[in-house]
């Protein structure tokens, strides 16, 4: 261990308010020329700790040493002065600029630059402007600036053209630009915040190759991740954080995934999620040839067809941005569909019609088409009956559906869907941006879907208040009161509020997008249990997830999306992670579409749950 330390952090504590202790007395070090993985679950304080090195936050207490010298890093510029560069999870690039311009953006200009001098020597005119610029602390952009940068790019073998604009680039290219940016500024300590979250396996391999090359040239690298296989593949050492505390730093070669998991999660947690076989799954929602084109004209969902059954959880897997969001929003009526149909089977078989969603005229029309029968099995004929008589029959529950009601949801707005009596619940990805109103109280958020009910122009807050308190109690939402704005709640509690509301309407279809993103293990399990309960009530549950282990353990079938297309619908009980991973990156020539075969499924072996 004779390597010197690039960074040493001693006794670092950072709190947000009184309740959230992001880091507690953390001691952490990074050696020169190593790749160190910072491992921890969501919310364990990894990013906060790194942000203190990068100058985004200031620690409440503790000391930071860079190459043995105590420093105070007040801003990202300070960090750069210490040759520290951070690549954030959300890229900080100007879309309209070229990659090269993004890289030199914010750079301090060195007037001793030979090229400039050369140019200035050539004629008095240019010299005048260069000196004027110097004088005004204003500098000119050289026309061939992109070319100069290409040298750094070639040094590390990044295959990227820096004269392209950012908006034309893929996620992995943007990430490359970010990396080049920090290298260009002379950083030799690099921090990468979850760099692999947005990449395909091939891109991850490429990134790792680049990182290894940089290490061999003497750079020190910290990579934040919560994926164990990546930790084992890339790092020399692993530092584990749990709930803001530093648990241990170990040599990667001397440890294994199991040991790391134990350190990361603390006590052993039963990773098995209960999964029952679907009971009598019946198709509830048919998606046929659905195509969604976004505002920029890109086809996000490309002729997708599948069906969801009542009583099953259908997982949706795919690298983020491959059409998951557009698919769900399309079904919910929030995105216009360019093509395709959504057919909903309202489970009404042998149930009486109500006046809640059907007026008398519609009931007459439907009766004429032979939709209804009387309790004694005779077909309903309403000819010659007055409206009053019909209303009475409906109220006495004498008019009964023969079959499920079939409704086409194409081109219906969310409100029309609601008014048709289709109980479709949707837990969107970005909870506070869509689904909840951050500044409103829990009670007011409860009535978002139901406030129109009741006559009169005034709101009735009685029911929402009761619902809010039921959810706070049943789902153990931690909140000062039911009047607290939801924005003040932690991520898990926000999610409980939203999921609680969405299932309170006893939906027939429940769509959830990344419902456990950012939640701790306990909150995640609360959500899994809620979804399983819905499944048991023969709700058709659609679960869009990113963690393949969870998808494999929770879902009955998994729909895999790749580039907006279906690359397979598979049986979650008989597939491996690797197979799904493969489908996520490539649409096979022959797409498998797994469906239930009602008789055989009881014979299926239930023991292969993971």
């Amino acid at each position, binding site marked *: 261990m004779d390597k010197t330390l690039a960074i040493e952090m001693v006794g670092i504590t950072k*709190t*947000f*308010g*009184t*309740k*959230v202790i992001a880091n507690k007395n953390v001691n952490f070090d990074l050696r020169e020329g190593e790749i160190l993985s910072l491992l921890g679950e969501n919310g364990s304080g990894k990013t906060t700790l790194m942000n203190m090195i990068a100058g*985004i*936050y*200031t620690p*409440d*207490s503790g000391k930071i*040493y860079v190459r*043995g*010298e*105590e*420093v*105070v890093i*007040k*801003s990202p510029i300070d960090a750069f002065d210490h040759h520290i560069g951070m690549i954030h999870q959300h890229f900080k690039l100007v879309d309209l600029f070229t990659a090269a311009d993004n890289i030199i953006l914010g750079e301090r200009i060195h007037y001793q630059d030979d090229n400039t001098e050369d140019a200035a020597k050539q004629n008095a005119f240019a010299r005048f402007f260069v000196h004027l610029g110097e004088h005004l602390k204003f500098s000119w952009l050289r026309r061939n600036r992109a070319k100069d940068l290409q040298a750094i790019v070639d040094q590390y073998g990044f295959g990227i053209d820096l004269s392209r604009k950012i908006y034309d680039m893929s996620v992995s290219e943007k990430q490359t630009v970010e990396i080049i940016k920090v290298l260009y500024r002379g950083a030799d300590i690099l921090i990468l915040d979850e760099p692999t979250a947005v990449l395909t396996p091939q891109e991850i391999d490429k990134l790792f190759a680049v990182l290894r090359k940089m290490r061999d040239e003497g750079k020190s690298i910290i990579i934040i991740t919560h994926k164990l296989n990546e930790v084992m593949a890339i790092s020399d050492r692993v530092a584990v954080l749990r709930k803001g505390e530093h648990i241990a730093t170990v040599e990667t070669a001397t440890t294994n995934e199991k040991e790391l998991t134990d350190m990361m999660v603390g006590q052993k947690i039963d990773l098995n999620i209960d999964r029952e076989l679907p009971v009598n799954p019946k198709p509830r929602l048919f998606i046929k040839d659905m195509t969604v084109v976004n505002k920029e004209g890109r086809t996000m969902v490309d002729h997708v067809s599948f069906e969801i059954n009542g009583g099953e959880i259908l997982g949706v897997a795919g690298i983020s941005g491959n059409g998951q969001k557009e698919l769900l929003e399309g079904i*919910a*009526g*929030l995105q216009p569909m360019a093509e395709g149909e959504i057919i909903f089977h309202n489970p009404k078989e042998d149930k009486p019609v109500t006046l809640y969603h059907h007026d008398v005229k519609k009931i007459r029309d439907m009766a004429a088409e032979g939709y209804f029968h009387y309790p004694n099995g005779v077909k309903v004929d309403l000819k010659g009956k007055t409206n009053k008589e019909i209303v009475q029959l409906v109220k006495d529950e004498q008019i009964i559906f023969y079959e499920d009601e079939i409704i086409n949801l194409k081109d219906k*707005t*969310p*409100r*029309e*869907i*609601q008014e048709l009596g289709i109980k479709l619940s*949707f837990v*969107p990805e*970005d909870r*506070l*941006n*869509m*689904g*909840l*109103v*951050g*500044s*409103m109280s829990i009670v*007011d958020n409860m*009535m*978002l*879907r139901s*406030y*129109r009910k009741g006559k009169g*122009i*005034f*709101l009735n807050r009685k029911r929402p208040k009761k619902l809010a308190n039921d959810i706070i109690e049943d789902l153990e939402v931690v909140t000062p009161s039911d009047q607290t704005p939801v924005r*003040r*709640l*932690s991520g898990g509690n926000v999610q409980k509020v939203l999921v609680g509301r969405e299932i309170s309407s006893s939906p027939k279809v429940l769509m959830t997008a990344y419902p456990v993103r950012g939640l701790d293990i306990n909150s995640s399990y609360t959500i899994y249990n809620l979804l399983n309960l819905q499944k048991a009530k023969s709700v058709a549950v659609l679960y869009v997830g990113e963690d393949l282990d969870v998808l494999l353990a929770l879902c009955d079938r998994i729909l895999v999306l790749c580039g907006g297309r279906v690359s397979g619908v598979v049986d979650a009980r008989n597939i491996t992670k690797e197979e799904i991973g493969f489908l996520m990156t490539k649409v096979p020539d022959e797409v498998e579409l797994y469906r239930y075969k009602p008789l055989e499924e009881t014979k299926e072996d239930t023991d292969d749950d993971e």
Partner: protein
Amino acid sequence: MMSNKHVKEPLMHLTRRLNVSKKYAWAIRIGAFVLSILVCCIVSCILSPRVNFGFFFKYLFNGAFGTTNLVMALFREMAVILLLALAVTPCFQMRYWNIGGEGQTMMGAFGCALIVAYTAGKMPAWGTILLSFAVGVAFATVWAVIPALFKAKWNTNETLLTLMFNYIAVCLGAFLIKKVAPIGTGILNFSTGTLAAAGVNDFLIIFLIAVLFTVLMFVYMRYSKHGYEVMVVGESPNTARYIGINTKKVIIRTLVLCGVMCGVVGFLLVSVKDASFLSDNVMQSTVAGRGFTAVLISWLAHFNPWAMALTAFLVVFITRGANNVGNYARLGNSYASMMVGIFFFFIIATEFFINFKINFRSREEVTREPDDLADSEPIEAKQEEGDDND
């Protein structure tokens, strides 16, 4: 290891306060008000040798509360500004930045004036009054709804459009006055066909309408379904879409409401005795910047009608009081605006002290008082911090 190099510690850093207690917030606000008056006083003393502390406060209070008439005029003016602030409040709650209250009121006033000019004396006084009221409201509503239609249909920027509509309204008004009275001073005076001419107590009617609208607006925003929709559209347009609120409809409906209220004020400005001119008239500058003041008041009061009433009162108090001080100290016309500016400066600064906390840190002990509540938006706070470190 410690180097002997001087390590710079940040002198202070800011943290965002979250659960700000009402007591604390009000203490800060009252403190700021007192401080602003004191600064006004000190500035006045520096500006003129005539002014000293006693002089300043004497004429300040005399100007606002000196006689019964002055008190009534103060409340009348406050009521007008309050009504305008109430009118734009639902728009702001919806994050629709309608800064065209001035122009909308102006159009209301001109609509009303046109009817009075052409029908006064030709039909019963009450007929003229009702008709002028209806036309005034209609003019103002149209003026408010046009930018809203643009916003709903093409998502144009409402701030610019409503601002420009103010100037169009003023010019249109001047043109209309010239049409009605080609020769004259640009002021139309009315002797019949107005509420004032019908002998209605100007103070009473304006004040009652203001009280009524304040209560109604409070109830509308807090307890009605419409108000709830306005909040959702403003706070989270995506959530509004998600629950199927027709955003366009809500925008237009809210702007109709705003236009109607501005129209009522326009009608009052024409038809009721005006505080400053003591006669019922209309001219190019009838609204006199009240529409803009109202925008600021609505904003400063965080869209709370009761707080708006208080803020409107304070602004009018300072304006009228400072005018009086300026008259006696011969400080000129702009003096009062300067005092109001100082007042606004202080009140706006309170927002900073209410929302942020400055933590000084000593080099030796790093004690840290935890701030009020968990889970902050640290990035935002940090950006502010960056500015402050220098």
